């Protein structure tokens, strides 16, 4: 009996298998057609402009820079003096470039270790609905709204040893006026202070937005569960804010690597290159000294660092966001 049913049943799937494709194919093809019909106009309409713009303004200049970086070229005439990787070699030997790299690292470190915690702390204070909170938010955010160049200029005056705010404060306390920006050992810290002042408001705003998206009743539940304020911060705020924190770290790192327009009016990379960043270095050594080939090599290195950091960061930390 069981044998018989087995024999009868076995051919059945075969038969249906034979029939199935003929039944399905027209349907599948029809579906495919419809799908392509929906996608092609979109591709034709939207892809070429984007592709052209991207090629014109991103791929081509990058390729060009990479090409120029292999030449000793002033920017006039055609690049003819092919030098291979010599520009990169010179770059690596350059002490100012290594200082710039270190400074960029320092700026990233300070952004992460001081600026972000400060922004987070202020955000937790200011995101409460206490009277005056909006005013504080605005005040903290103001430096970010300021143009970088303007901020650099303002702080150059503040730091000025003869008639700046720091000078008046020093004379008030009765100590010798420090010429902060003229001191090789301290100038970079003065710059770091301005960086923190300029950008913490931006991160604070990010954090406020993140905090406001956390359901208030979670904190009430935690209150009932017996959480102290610190426990609430550690077990609820931090984990639920982590996508925002990762985003903020991302912006900090990329922003630190690109720091330029604030430093130029502030120190111009000096004194004696102690406050160079990669971009000010590029500008000073590549652009103002008419060494386009060398400058391009700096640009290529900077680009590679940025891309590596950005992609590995996104892959490792932001893959869930």
């Amino acid at each position, binding site marked *: 009996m069981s044998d018989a049913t087995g024999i009868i049943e076995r051919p059945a799937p075969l038969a249906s298998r034979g029939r199935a494709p003929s039944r399905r194919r027209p349907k599948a093809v029809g579906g495919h057609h419809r799908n392509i019909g929906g996608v092609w106009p979109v591709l034709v309409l939207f892809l070429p402009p984007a592709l052209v713009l991207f090629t014109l303004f991103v791929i081509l200049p990058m390729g060009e820079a990479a090409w120029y970086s292999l030449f000793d070229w002033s920017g006039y005439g055609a690049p003819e003096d092919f030098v291979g990787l010599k520009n990169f070699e010179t770059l690596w030997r350059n002490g100012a470039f290594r200082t710039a790299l270190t400074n960029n690292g320092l700026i990233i470190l300070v952004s992460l270790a001081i600026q972000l915690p400060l922004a987070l702390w202020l955000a937790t204070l200011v995101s409460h609905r206490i009277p005056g909170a909006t005013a504080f938010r605005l005040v903290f955010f103001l430096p970010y709204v300021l143009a970088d160049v303007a901020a650099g200029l303002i702080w150059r005056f503040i730091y000025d040893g003869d008639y700046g705010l720091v000078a008046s404060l020093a004379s008030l306390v009765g100590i010798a006026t420090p010429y902060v920006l003229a001191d090789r050992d301290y100038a970079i810290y003065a710059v770091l202070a301005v960086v923190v002042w300029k950008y913490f408001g931006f991160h604070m705003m990010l954090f406020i937005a993140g905090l406001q998206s956390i*359901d208030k*009743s*979670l904190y*009430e*539940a*935690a*209150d*009932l*569960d*017996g*959480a*102290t304020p610190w*426990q609430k911060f550690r*077990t*609820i705020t931090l*984990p*639920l804010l982590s996508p925002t924190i990762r985003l903020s770290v991302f912006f900090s790192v990329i922003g630190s690597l690109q720091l330029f327009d604030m430093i130029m009016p502030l120190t111009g990379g000096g004194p004696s290159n102690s406050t160079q960043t990669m971009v000010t270095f590029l500008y000073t050594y590549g652009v103002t000294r008419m060494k386009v080939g060398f400058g391009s090599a700096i640009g290529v290195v900077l680009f590679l660092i940025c891309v590596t950091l950005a992609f590995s960061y996104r892959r490792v930390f932001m893959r869930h966001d």
Partner: protein
Amino acid sequence: MASIALNDVRKFFGHHPVLHGISLEIRDGEFVILVGPSGCGKSTLLRMLAGLEDVSEGEISIGGRVVNDMAPKERDIAMVFQNYALYPHMTVADNMAFSLRLAGAPKAQKQAAVARAAEILDLSHLLDRFPRELSGGQRQRVAMGRAIVRDPAVFLFDEPLSNLDAKLRVAMRTEIKALHQRLKTTMVYVTHDQIEAMTMADRIVVMNGGRVEQVGRPLDLYDKPANLFVAAFIGSPAMNLLHGEAVAAPGGTAFRAKGGGLLPLPADRGVQPGTPLVYGVRPEHIELAASAACDTEAQIAVVEPTGSETQVFMTLGSDSLVGVFRERVADEPGSTLRLRIDPARVHLFEPSTGARIDAAAASTSPIREAVLA
């Protein structure tokens, strides 16, 4: 376990009063439901019990201790929120064990407590999931589990079933009631759904506009609503309430509605002809007259059969009247229904104050005394 006492509790948001002096005793182990329309202050009162809102005036004590100035965690209470407030980044097990983790309890104790709560609520197979991976009903149970793990003296619920679909709501109703019978812990439960209140509560507190309208067992509220608000709020479909006055009729007094209908009055309330009244009768207490003897006649407007019973919307003069009948009503709209109303099941209210006119009041009424004399 603990009793709760509220003594003239008031709440202001700024200068805006929300609760106007609430006094209430809740016995140890009792299941009390606060019910009332939206915005009447139920959640506010519950949150004051929990310590999430300050008490503006008055006194709240839990288990004999005044808790006005106590932090939520010192009150030995657990609360189930309307949106459940589950920690989204923690698994079900971690959500439930959170309070123990904060208290630094050993791992074995946490596991045992979670396992017990999970078993009670049938959550054991979900312990490793995150809240986003659960259905509404499961989330609801996790929220209750988190409360059970605490083993609190009082459970507070704020509309825990309002996010569930109708069928699940009925099922969870039974589950919560069973939970109360099993744990025998004091529970205070907020809802705006009077059916939920009627089916689950030991006692119901009906609130309206920041005041308590009536406190009582579900059937007491149904049988003897203290005022018009409770009469209209408790019972579904709602009680028919007709404005009118008592008039002299052959064999005593009757009620004449403003719309013109004439209805029988209970003799024991001692109302005199000319007294303005609000006349209340529940739809399920109106019957179809079997014989020629009927109390009143009404015209059918709409017939809604539900199978087990028939709900009929009628017009009585120019008033409308709803009846729920066991019998099937086959008549067409427009035709006349002959109705009987048992006077003993009629509720009378004073139109000015809305207060119930009781038989007890009649014992001192002049008519009753005249009859006795």
